[in-house]
């Protein structure tokens, strides 16, 4: 093995030291990944020592090893949860058959597409967030940003491992292409729309990690059921890391809300902006935006792709065990589908009993909606405890959608149809306006590098990381 490709530098539980094929593939890919990281990773912090968690094994102690490390020296590893002996496929047409340890040729293309689409979101989010460090509200948050970034990088490794190990030459080419696309670049964009939107400020970052990474969680939960066992095991391990990203989002928004409540209380008119905070309606607009673009990531409500993936036992439902019918040949999902005229005005609704397999995206979205509500309730409790009447809410899932049955149509946040003209007039009341963006950006013009200090618009966290105090120097500049 080369000096770079060895089990010490690349912690793994896939027997890299005896896997010549994987070694060879990584020899070509790893240097390109590092080049990509240096070019597109967090800008301006590559030489800093960051207190990061590194997974060095899958067991209880090993998956969360903390130490200072320069990000380009981070040990991106390859981990799958331990195999479940005699695992059987849990859904679809191959229900009850032994899980596949190699890619069935019949599904090679479908699986590759699933893995590439999932894999593409990982480097995309690093690219979206690359400038955020320069406006960080604290060293604690800066460290969390980098933790999320390196783990997105590791999730890219996880998908690349599958491409390298199971898809031959095609897989190697796809792995290269994952490093060639660029978020927001019109000539070589990332695959999914939401991952081409820049993440311009920290409020967006917290919303992204709360809402968009939560889409990631549900996609991973669905893939964790896959009949292709290496994919299932890879995504199961990724889920342990994904939880931290959502923690960053949930607590991040909560700290903003808490600080806003404090600032409101200081002001006679409860005017947060006057006190230099982010007012609650603006936070609600960010919720509306990130929630709606994340809903789009689940795909169409009525989808033949979703049906095919389920039928082929490639992508199941989140926590498939909780269902009783795993083949889902007969079931249906009742949907009200909007009927629109040429001007995109909704003229009526038709009831459709969509075959359940075709509605799998919507089934997964339902779980997501429920899960998204939970954090919102915690934020509302902060407001309640502060004695503030305002309550956050998730907008209707019809609001501001780009694809699926509501895509291209116009609905208010309660899901009532409206004309394009009316919607555009009301837009800035629902979604961050240019002025809102400018205001939020104006709060975040300079980074806070002093250990323990917080930017004015955000409250400190309740506790630090891994038993360290909040004042700990999480990033050594």
């Amino acid at each position, binding site marked *: 093995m080369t000096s770079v490709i060895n089990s010490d530098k690349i912690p793994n539980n896939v027997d890299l030291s005896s896997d010549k094929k994987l070694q060879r593939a990584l020899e070509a890919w790893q240097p390109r990944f590092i080049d990509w990281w240096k070019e597109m990773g967090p800008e301006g912090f590559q030489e800093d020592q960051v207190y990061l968690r590194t997974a060095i094994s899958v067991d209880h102690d090993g998956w969360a090893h903390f130490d200072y490390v320069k990000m380009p020296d981070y040990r991106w590893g390859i981990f799958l949860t331990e195999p479940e002996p005699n695992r059987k496929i849990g859904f679809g047409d191959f229900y009850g058959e032994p899980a596949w340890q190699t890619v069935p040729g019949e599904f*090679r293309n479908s699986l590759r597409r699933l893995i590439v689409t999932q894999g593409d979101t990982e480097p995309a989010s690093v690219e979206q967030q690359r400038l955020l460090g320069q406006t960080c509200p604290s060293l604690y948050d800066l460290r969390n940003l980098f933790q999320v970034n390196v783990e997105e990088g590791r999730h890219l490794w996880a998908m690349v491992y599958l491409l390298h190990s199971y898809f031959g030459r095609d897989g190697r080419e796809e792995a290269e292409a994952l490093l060639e696309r660029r978020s927001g670049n019109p000539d070589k964009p990332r695959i999914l729309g939401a991952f081409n939107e820049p993440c311009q400020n920290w409020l967006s970052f917290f919303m992204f990690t709360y809402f968009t990474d939560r889409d990631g969680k549900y996609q991973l939960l669905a893939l964790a059921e896959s009949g292709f066992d290496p994919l299932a095991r890879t995504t199961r391990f990724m889920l342990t890391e994904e939880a931290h990203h959502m923690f960053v989002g949930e607590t991040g928004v909560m700290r903003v809300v808490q600080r806003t409540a404090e600032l409101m209380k200081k002001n006679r008119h409860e005017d947060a902006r006057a006190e230099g905070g982010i007012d609650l309606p603006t936070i609600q607009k960010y919720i509306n935006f990130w929630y709606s673009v994340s809903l789009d990531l689940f795909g169409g409500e009525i989808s033949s792709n979703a049906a095919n993936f389920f039928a082929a036992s490639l992508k199941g439902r989140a926590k498939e065990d909780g269902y009783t019918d795993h083949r889902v040949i007969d079931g249906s999902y009742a949907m009200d589908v909007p009927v629109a005229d040429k001007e995109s005005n909704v003229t009526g609704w038709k009831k459709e009993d969509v075959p359940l397999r075709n509605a799998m995206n919507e089934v997964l979205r339902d779980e997501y909606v429920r899960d998204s509500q939970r954090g919102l309730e915690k934020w509302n409790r902060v407001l309640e405890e502060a004695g503030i009447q305002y309550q956050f809410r998730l907008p209707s899932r019809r609001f501001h959608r780009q694809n699926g049955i509501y895509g291209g149509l116009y609905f208010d946040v309660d899901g009532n149809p409206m004309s394009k003209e009316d919607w555009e007039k009301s837009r800035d009341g629902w979604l961050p306006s240019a002025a809102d963006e400018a205001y939020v950006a104006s709060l975040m013009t300079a980074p806070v590098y002093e250990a323990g200090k917080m930017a004015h618009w955000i409250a400190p966290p309740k506790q630090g990381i891994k038993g360290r105090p909040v004042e700990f120097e999480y990033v050594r500049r």
Partner: protein
Amino acid sequence: MEHAAPSSQEPIRFEAHPSGYKHWVLTFDGPIARLAMDVNQEHPLRPGYELKLNSYDLGVDIELADAVERIRFEHPEVKVVLVTSAQPRIFCAGANIYMLGSSTHAFKVNFCKFTNETRNSLEEACSESGQHYVAALNGVSSGGGYELALACEKILLADDGNSAVSFPETPLLAVLPGTGGLTRLVDKRKVRRDLADVFSTLAEGIRGRRAQEWNLVDESIAKSKFDATVKERALTMAAATPDKVGAGLTLAPVTPKRSTEKGWLKSEYTHVTLTVKPNDRLAEIEVRGPSSAESLAGESLRAAGNDLWIFRAFRELNDALLDLRFNHETAGLVLLTTKGDPEKVRAADKALLDLEASGDWLAHEIRLYVKRTLKRLDLSARSMFAILTKGSCFAGSLFELALAADRSYMLDDEDEPVQIGLSGMNHGPLPMSNGLTRLQTRFLGRPAIPTELVGVTELMDAATAKERGLVTFTPDAMDWDDEVRLAIEERVSLSPDALTGMEANLRFAGPETMETKIFARLSAWQNWIFQRPNAVGEKGALTMYGRPERPELDWRRT
């Protein structure tokens, strides 16, 4: 309509010998052979129908194919073959309708394909081998009977008030003649299209002078003078045909050793092994190269006879292909492999081509046989992947297997390079049915390449072969197993019907010939008309044939 699949019955075998013919009488008189059809109605290939009125089934055609081959190889003295009937008032009523009615679709398609290949071989004997087929129609010739006559170089029809030629398929059965008849009418005999239209809808056909006037036959001859005139015409043609120097050879059987092991069906020939893996929908044909490579002379060729490597290998391949087509319907993907020394293959090719160039008719005949077998491979409705691994010998005539394949996988191993090579066989002697070599067809848009390749005489490794466009994929040793496995699994998961159509579209780029037209239109009509309710529905014409009620047709045109 669809009965038990043939695979559930005894397998069909394709070897025959005149001593065992049930349906033909083959006699020789100097330069003239007489091949008289005398179908024994009690001996259909499968039980369930009677072969009345010299109607034929596959069993009859297997004997015909055998006869045509034997006349070519065993009887160089024969210059004219009279195809006639040994039964009164009927030459041949065509393919047996009840046989067709009780066969699976796949069987019908393969039956028609085989009969077409036999007729093409008969035409090739006329144009390439100095053996002129003359149809002496001494009775009614309808459907496939007239199509057999159309494949002959000359058609002589008895003018007796009874003997007619006809295509009753459209008016009586709502299907089409399945052995190239319509194409040959207008393309070969150049019958005016409006007259051909009238003829093809006239169930009772056309007799006597009018048949001659429309060029449906070459001569209409009064009954009293028929035999004498036929003989006279045969002798005239024979006199105009040069003699062949050198003896023929007696075709020996190439029966393989068959065994079943782990559910795999193995047919082991001397140079070929066919392995069918029904559970994987897969078959593998391995062709082994020659063990020695010496130059050939007329005597050494005849001394080697049936055991000449290239002849035996391709006869075995031919038999394996027919076995695959008729007896292993679900083996949708065929992996073509070879084993041996590529240089020895090229030497064997050269030896045969040199001897042919010196004028030896038997060398010429063997080369034509190789050509026909490769066409049969092209025309087999199976996906084909050539797998070029260590110890393979895809060179010259055996490289044609890789060129015939839908794609090829060649192992790229620096330590122990797999090599391919070209020989004279790749540059003209083995054209496809479109009249082009497989290299010309492959590089249709870049015609300079096949010409340049004539100058490439060294063996090529995987990188070179890939660069020259001669192979599709060249995975290295680390990728090989996965790449090939995935490609195989993916292929056998696709619809067999769509693949058949797709492959047939892609394989035959380039110009149309009578052969390509016949096979293309055959598959088009068989796969459409023969599946339509107007033919095979409950009240379809083919279903109702011979029953008291009339068929009911759906009158909508497409």
